[in-house]
């Protein structure tokens, strides 16, 4: 592609050299995310921990996994203003909390019934 001035971007082809991460950061992210997947799998398949312990391990590795995805692959800390990605993330968290907490609240009828 020949270099040219592209004032209002057509969205195909990235002309400006944005910092979209290097091979090194992608490799590190990939390895960490694999490790974070393997840990809970080993714990579950081999029954290494108690029920509470297993749930805790899954929860912690899941949250770490989320952070790895956000920083190594989604480049959440890059980009200029306005910070659409931060706004989207905040709304995302609100909705995730609604889904999880809401489901727990709604489905607790089961324990009431039994």
């Amino acid at each position: 592609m020949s270099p040219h001035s592209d004032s209002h971007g057509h969205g195909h082809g990235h002309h400006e050299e944005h910092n979209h991460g290097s091979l090194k950061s992608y490799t590190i992210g990939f390895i960490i995310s694999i490790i974070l997947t393997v840990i809970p799998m080993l714990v579950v398949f081999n029954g290494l921990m108690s029920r509470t312990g297993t749930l805790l391990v899954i929860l912690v590795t899941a949250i770490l996994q989320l952070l790895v995805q956000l920083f190594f692959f989604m480049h959440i800390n890059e980009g200029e203003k306005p910070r659409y990605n931060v706004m989207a993330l905040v709304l995302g968290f609100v909705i995730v909390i609604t889904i999880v907490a809401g489901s727990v609240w709604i489905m607790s009828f089961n324990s009431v019934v039994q």
Partner: protein
Amino acid sequence: MLDSIKDFAADFFVTGDPLIYGADVSIALVSIAIVFVLTYFKKWKWLWREWLTTVDHKKIGIMYLIASLLMLFRGGVDALLMRTQLALPNVEFLQADHYNAIFTTHGTIMILFMAMPMMFALFNMVVPLQIGARDVAFPFLNALSFWLFLMGAMLLNVSFVIGGSPDAGWLSYPPLSELSGSPGVGQDFYIWGIQISGIGSLATGINFIVTILKMRAPGMKLMKMPLFSWSVLSACITILFAFPILTITLALLFLDRYFGAHFFTLDGGGMSMMYVNLIWMWGHPEVYIVVLPAFGIFSEIVATFSKKTIFGYKSMVFAMMVISVLSFFTWVHHFFTMGSSADVNSFFAITTMAIAIPTGVKVFNWLFTMFRGRISFQSPMLWTMGFIPCFLVGGATGVMLAVAPADFQYHNSYFLIAHFHQVLIGGVVFGYLAGIYYWWPKLFGFKLDEKRGRWAFWTWNIGFYVCFFPQYFLGLDGMTRRVYTYGWDRGWAALNFTSTIGAFMMGIGFLFQVWQIAYSVRKGERATGDAWGGNGRTLEWSIPSPPPVYNFAVVPQVKHADDWFHVKEDKAKGIERPKQQLEPIHMPKNSAIPFVMASFFFLVGFGFTFHWTWMIIVGALGVFGSLFARSFSYDVDYYIPVDEVIETERKLGRSY
């Protein structure tokens, strides 16, 4: 050998019902006719080059439109079959299991394969033109979204003649949709049809968010953006957060069915109500996803045809954003009767009623815009006027349903059926039809005939009320949804018969529209750029109809909201905006990869449906191969030289 082929065919094809043999014959005849016509007129190359590989948002929009109208026809025929069965007591037109399959496919097709693509058709046809862009942010992804949708839709539709249709209701509640309740392949067609088209929907949501945030013409601040584009933005934000929930829920159901997991089964620790909880977290935002763009369409039409600026622009924007976020906090009202605690039900009853507030604001704004306007009643405005009372009644019955204790009486009765058809037909279908009438001349270069349009409008509208008002009373008389027949002793015969008459009137209204289009293709009035009597207000009316491939010869410099209106006003005062220099235009190249990749997705879905591992592997390899091919294709764009732009514009009667 012959016997085993016979056995296979008997399982593979749906047999035993004359209606289905009729469908087999008509599908075969239509396919042969299409192949014949394409070959006879030597149109295969044209089809491939102009349509199957296109990445032009206008053409993709037109393909979405055609597909959604076909799906409207299929879903409508389903509806008429049901109404025929219910017209009188003890009719033996459809058997119980066939009736189950028909109401399931009617619902699934109308929401996911009619409303969604018709919405995407309008997104594609209008948004880039309205914000002064030359295409969407990711044209390749846009084409891929369309083909994924189409392959998903085909997968669901093919179940009619191959393998058997899904019949567990449009949202497939377990345990009925589990292997124990639905051992056939219909449910797998349902899962894979929706999953594959769901990837497309999510991608379209992302695509249009980026398009609207990043590709507006210079000077068009967000608060100067036309309201339809705002409605698309709010709908896409909702898509972004709602569709992953659907994907996960159906993936869990798939794990249950395919690998014997127990997420939603009755035994093994599963909880089927969790599915209902999850699916409505998508399902409720989904109805707002489809209705928000309709609100945007009405805002454009009301302003144009009242020849006034929209009343309360800021409150319109605010109302839409509030609706798109609030829509995530109301889902329990679909299952108040599940037996959650009173706290839960009260909370969700109140959030549901709260949504009526921003919606009411919008209705008043439309009315105030019309107030003292010089309204011209052409098709788009007619449908808008039809929408307001219809949606109002639908909204009011919605608030009735939102009262949790009362809902125990209405739940799953025909009262509910009448309510949601009133908001979905009165709001979404009327809205999209209004939008199609409004932007048709822009996309196709000719107007749709008004006379036949009026016939269609009145048969649709009167038919609607004749069909659905009796259903409120049927519901109050105790008729529940999904019954396939009833006895004379229930006293429902007269109301049901009336309802069936109304349904057929709407069917006739649809036929009038088909006639209207066919008539207008030959005799329609030629449309100018500013097709509605020069009253257009937004940028799409500043360019020729139909627009050239690059939309805007020069990217407009926006100064005001409703910029085109101001340009015309200035011109009348003798103030001309300075002419801009033409530059070579950067455009995306066509690509066959979206079509090929989506076809492989179809194989994956079909393979999973029939447990054919070899086909899954072939399909998956194809999908990854396509991704690989795309990653290494660098020749994806080109420039249109200035001379060619000048020549194209000259042919369209514009000089530079």
